[in-house]
């Protein structure tokens, strides 16, 4: 029955039986690290392909369909091309920071990936302050972007990086506050416990009106957090070349690119976990088969990823002042009022429980 659980447990027992404890735990960590790197790479490449196909369908085009069946190997070919390209740089760049920046971005998104529960027990790091950890980690990524923009010694890169700083710092608030609204219901920051509570109905149902408002705010500010259109001030192609990664080429560029898509996945995964019950099946139809939770989780996440792509291919890019007006004059006050409403609803026991 409990397939995923038993596989991980068997490997765990087997490792500890053939090796001394300290070595075995290190080997286990390395294995988990490698597994997450593989998930990272596959997810990143798949999301890039998905984005390109969906963009094509929105624009009445066909999209990449030549390499492999329906273009499934297109992004693999692109990655191979990027691997074989020369790593260029500007002469007056700060070499150390310039080379460090892509790793900041990629490590922060990998760390965020680690706390997301794919299904029951398939969870690299079930930390008891999960949501807090996610909020904290998501703001480290912006350091990578700022470093990259600063160290490139390029005015467009610097402008792009500074815009990213403005954007991420302001929208950070909305992301955190909209998640806090939901935490009032759950009373716990631990992601596995948040999902456990949703067995009585997904939080977006439990919290009804304020939860829906919080979800809308989270999706808006999450899109802004991951620097995607319509909030792609950072790499506004028509204004800044490519923004903060103008001077990057080859694999370093690919790191930025993959991290951007993984960040989108992470935002969608957090929304799926906090609002839509994570790996829980609707009405508990497949509750007896825990490993199916992966599919429910990925299904919900990809629906939300599609929503973000839909935003991207519908809305025009905001100006910087419009971006800040939206955050400070609309999202933040609505969010604060929403928290009070949610607190009242929880206090008066008006949540919908099944």
């Amino acid at each position, binding site marked *: 029955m409990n397939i995923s659980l038993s596989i991980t447990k068997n490997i765990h027992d087997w490792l500890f039986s053939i090796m001394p404890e300290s070595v075995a735990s290190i080997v286990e960590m390395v294995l988990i690290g490698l597994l997450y790197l593989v998930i990272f790479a596959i997810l990143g490449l798949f999301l890039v392909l998905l984005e390109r196909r969906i963009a094509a369908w929105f624009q009445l085009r066909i999209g990449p369909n030549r390499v492999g069946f329906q273009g499934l190997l297109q992004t693999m070919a692109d990655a191979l091309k990027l691997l074989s390209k020369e790593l260029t740089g500007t002469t007056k760049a700060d070499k150390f920071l310039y080379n460090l920046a892509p790793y900041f971005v990629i490590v922060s998104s990998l760390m965020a990936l680690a706390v997301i529960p794919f299904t029951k027990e398939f969870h690299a790091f079930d930390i008891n302050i999960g949501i807090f950890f996610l909020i904290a980690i998501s703001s480290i990524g912006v350091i990578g972007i700022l470093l990259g923009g600063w160290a490139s010694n390029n005015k467009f890169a610097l402008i792009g990086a500074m815009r990213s700083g403005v954007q991420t710092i302001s929208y950070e608030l909305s992301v955190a506050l909209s998640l806090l609204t939901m935490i009032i219901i759950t009373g716990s920051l631990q992601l596995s416990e948040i999902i456990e509570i949703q067995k009585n109905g997904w939080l977006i149902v439990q919290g009804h009106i304020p939860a829906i408002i919080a979800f809308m705010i989270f999706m808006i500010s999450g899109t802004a957090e991951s620097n995607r259109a319509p909030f792609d001030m950072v790499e506004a192609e028509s204004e800044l070349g490519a923004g903060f990664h103008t001077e990057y080429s080859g694999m370093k560029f690919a790191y930025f690119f993959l991290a951007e898509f993984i960040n989108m996945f992470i935002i969608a995964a957090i929304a799926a976990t906090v609002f839509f019950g994570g790996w829980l099946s609707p009405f508990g139809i497949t509750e007896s088969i825990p490993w199916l939770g992966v599919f429910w989780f990925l299904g919900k996440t990809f629906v939300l990823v599609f929503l973000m792509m839909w935003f991207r291919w*519908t*809305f025009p890019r905001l100006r910087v002042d419009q971006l800040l007006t939206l955050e400070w004059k609309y999202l933040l006050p609505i969010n604060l009022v929403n928290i009070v409403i949610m607190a009242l609803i929880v206090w008066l026991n008006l949540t919908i429980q099944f």
Partner: protein
Amino acid sequence: MSYFSDIYKGIKTLLTGMSVTGKYFLTSRKGAITQQYPDNRATLKMFDRFRGEVIMPHNENNEHRCTGCQKCEIACPNGTIEIIWDRGIDETTGKKKKKIDQFVYHLSMCTMCGLCIDVCPTNAIEWGQNFENSVYDRTALTRVLNKPESKLQPGVED
């Protein structure tokens, strides 16, 4: 109070936009405008207003509608059209009459501006939909549009 109506209007317009793109997304399978070109060469049909090249249609009796008035040659901004003409005897009236010998069209010089087609009083030349015009020798781009032995269609000059 405009604060709240602004929020309402904002959400409403965003949803309107999303419904428009959503409709396009759902119909994209049927209405994809991308042509997968070399694969569909057999079935590819260019649209009517496509400007591929200038052609002179002939009817089944090998007759065209060009009277040799040379208005197209004058209208052409870059000397693409050259009309070689002479005077022949008209069969019905027995008088001398201007006839085209060769309607020479240099595709390599043509900018597809369409002035010649606009100016033609008898609709003798039109846009053709052929676009596969690459050749290895540029002399192949100089074309004679009237077919050999072709004549003026009777009744065009009336």
